[in-house]
C-alpha cells in the first residue's frame, strides 16, 4: 500500500472540440477520505470523475490515481478503482447472482475469492435476499447498494460514485451514506459527486465546481468560514418583505450577502457590530435569529460572487 495521497490531480483539463468541459483543475485526496464534488449539472463533475476512472483521457494536465498515471492509456487505473455510474447500475433482466458473477468475470476473480468477497460485501450492505432475485424486483435503494458492492467486488483502493443516490428515497439516502462511511473505515477512499447539499455536509472535503472550474476546495467548515467570516442572520418579516426595509438592509455597511430563502431572508455581515447596526434599523415586526451558514449559502455566495 502506498503511503502517498490516494489521488493527486494537477492542472487537469479536457476539451471536446471547442468546448472546455474541465478547466485546469488541481487537488489531492488523502487515503480514507470522503471527497465530494458539488455543483450543478454540466459543471464538469461527471467528466472529471470519468477521467479519473480512466474512461476519458485528459487533453492536458496530469493525475495520479492510486499511484498510477495515464501513461498506459488508463489501463492500470481501471484495474485499481471501482466505479458506480450515474445512469446505469445493474442489468434489470438478470438476477443478483448473475450480475455479480459477471462483475467477477470481468475482473477475472477466482470463484473462491469472488465468493468470499460477495459474503463480505453482503454483510456490509446487509443484503440477505437470495441470489436468484431479479434485479428488477428490488427497490431503488437496494439496487444502489448492490451496485456499490459490484463496484467493490475486486477490492479496489479507490471508489468513484457518480450521483449514487439520485432518485432514491431520503431514508435510503441516509442508509447509503452510512455505508459510505463504513467503506472509508475499511481504509478505502471514496470520491462522490452529488448535488444534494445535505450529503455534501457529510464529506470530509468538498470541491465546488462551476462551468468546468474548481471554485472552492475545503472541508464544509472551512468553506463556510471562508465565505462568511462574520455572523449570519435569518430574518422573517411574517409576510412579504417591505421594500423599504430590504432597501435599507441592502445598503447597510458591512453587509456581505443578502439572499432570499423561501419566505425568509439570509443576511451575512462582516462582523458583529455591523450586524447589530443593520438589525437596529429594521422594523420591529421582523423576527431575527443568528444561524450557521449552510453549504447552500456558501454555494450561492460563490456562484453569484463569480458572476459579479
Amino acid at each position, binding site marked *: 500500500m502506498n503511503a502517498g495521497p490516494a489521488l493527486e490531480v494537477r492542472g487537469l483539463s479536457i476539451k*471536446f472540440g471547442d468546448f472546455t468541459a474541465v478547466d485546469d483543475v488541481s487537488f489531492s485526496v488523502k487515503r480514507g477520505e470522503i471527497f465530494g464534488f458539488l455543483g450543478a449539472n454540466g459543471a464538469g463533475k461527471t467528466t472529471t470523475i470519468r477521467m479519473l476512472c480512466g474512461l476519458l483521457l485528459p487533453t492536458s494536465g496530469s493525475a495520479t490515481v492510486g499511484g498510477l498515471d495515464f501513461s498506459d492509456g488508463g489501463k492500470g487505473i481501471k484495474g485499481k478503482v471501482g*466505479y458506480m455510474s450515474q445512469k446505469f447500475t445493474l442489468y434489470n433482466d438478470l438476477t443478483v447472482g448473475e450480475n455479480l458473477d459477471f462483475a467477477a468475470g470481468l475482473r477475472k476473480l477466482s470463484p473462491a475469492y469472488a465468493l468470499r468477497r460477495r459474503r463480505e460485501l453482503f454483510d456490509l450492505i446487509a443484503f440477505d435476499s437470495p441470489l436468484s432475485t431479479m434485479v428488477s424486483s428490488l427497490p431503488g435503494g437496494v439496487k444502489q447498494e448492490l451496485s456499490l458492492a459490484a463496484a467493490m467486488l475486486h477490492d479496489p483502493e479507490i471508489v468513484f460514485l457518480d450521483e449514487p443516490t439520485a432518485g432514491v428515497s431520503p431514508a435510503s439516502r441516509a442508509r447509503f451514506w452510512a455505508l459510505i462511511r463504513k467503506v472509508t473505515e475499511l481504509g478505502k477512499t471514496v470520491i462522490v459527486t452529488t448535488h444534494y447539499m445535505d450529503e455534501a455536509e457529510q464529506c470530509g472535503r468538498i470541491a465546488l465546481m462551476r462551468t468546468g472550474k474548481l471554485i472552492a476546495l475545503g472541508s464544509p467548515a472551512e468553506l463556510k468560514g471562508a465565505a462568511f467570516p462574520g455572523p449570519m442572520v435569518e430574518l422573517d418579516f411574517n409576510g412579504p418583505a417591505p421594500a423599504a426595509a430590504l432597501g435599507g438592509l441592502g445598503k447597510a455597511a458591512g453587509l456581505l450577502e443578502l439572499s432570499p430563502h423561501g419566505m425568509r431572508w439570509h443576511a451575512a455581515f462582516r462582523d458583529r457590530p455591523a450586524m447589530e447596526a443593520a438589525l437596529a434599523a429594521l422594523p420591529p415586526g421582523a423576527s431575527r435569529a443568528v444561524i450557521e451558514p449552510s453549504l447552500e449559502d456558501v454555494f450561492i455566495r460563490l456562484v453569484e460572487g463569480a458572476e459579479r
Partner: protein
Amino acid sequence: MTGFDLHRAAAVARKEVMHILRDPFTLALVLGLPVVLVVFFGFAIDFDVKNLALGVYDRDNTRHSRQLVSVFESSGYFLPGAVDSPAAAARGLDSGRYSAALLVEPGFGRGLGGGGRARVQFIVDGTDNSKAQAVLGYLPGLTGAALRKFGAAIPADPVPLKTRFMYNPELNSRWFVIPGLAVIIIGLLSILMTALTVAREWENGSMELLLSTPLRPAEIIAGKIAPYVGLILAGVFFVNLVARFGFGVPFRGSHLLFLGGTVLFALASLSQGIVISVVTRQQQLAMQLSMISGLLPSLLLSGFIFPVESMPIFFRYFTMILSPRWFMEIARGVTIRGAGADDLALPLAALAALCALLLAAAFKKFKTDLEP
C-alpha cells in the same frame, strides 16, 4: 491482438446468453420463425405460371387453328377464352382479364400447307415481368407441340436434342426456393439480432460501466457474437429437418461442409449486425439501418430469385460483398448438386474474407469515447 483475454470475453458471452434466455419471445421467434416462413413460402412460391387467361380470336376456324388452340389448352399453362375481335382482346389485356392473347387471322390453315409462312399474333401483357418471361419461355415448346400435331413435313427438331435435367429431373422449383429462403431468413435474423445488442448497452449506460473495467472492445465483440452462432446453428438445423422431411429437398453433399459454410455465414451476418450496432450506438437507428441495408438487398441481390449472372457486370461484382450471395451458392451446391469443398472453394473463401473484413471493421469502429 494485444491483450485479448478469453476469460473476460467468456464473461460477456455468459451474460449475453442470460439476456437471450430471459427474452423467451425473441428466442422463440429466432428459432421458430425460419421454420414457419420456410414452410409457408415453400408451399407458396411456384415459378411456373399456370392457368393464365388467354384471349383467343380465331378468325380462321380451320382444323389447324383449332389444333393450335388446343395445344395451348392442353399444356396446362393457359385457359383459353374466346373474344370477338382484336379490339376486345386489347380491352381484355388492358383490364387484366387476359394475360395474353392469341390472334389467328383467316388463311392460317391454308398458309400452313402451302409452304408459305403462316404466322399468328401472340400478345403478352408486359407489366408483370415474372409472368411475361415465363410465357415467352413456353413458346418454343408450344411451337414444337403444334408442329407435331400438324404432322408437318419439317420435323420440329431437325436435330434431336435430348435434354436431361440433372439433379432435379422433375423440375421441382421447391428445391431451388427452399434452400434460398432459409439462407435469406437466417441471414436477416442474424443481422437483426446483433444490430441491437451493442447499441442497447450504449443507450442504457451500461457500456460506460463496462469500459471502466479492463474489458477491451474486441472481447465485447467476441463475447456478444458467440452465443448467437449457437442460436443460428439450431435454427438452420430445424429448417433443414423441415426441408428434408417436409418437402423432400435432397441433401446430397457433405454435412461437415455445410456446417462449416453455415458457421462462416453466421459469423459474417452477425458481424454485419455488430458493425451496425457499434457505429450507430442507438437502437432505433441500428434497427432502421439493418432493415434497410438488409432486407431488400438480401432478397433481391443475393441470387435468391433474380439470378446474379443476369446482372450487369458492375452489380455482379457489387454482390460479392453480400454474404447471402455466397452462402446461397454453398447451400444449393451442397444440397442439390452434392458439390464438394474444392468445388465451393471460392464461395467459402469469400465468406471467410467477408467475416474477417467485417470483424475488423467492428473492431476499428468501436469508439470508446463518451459524450461530454
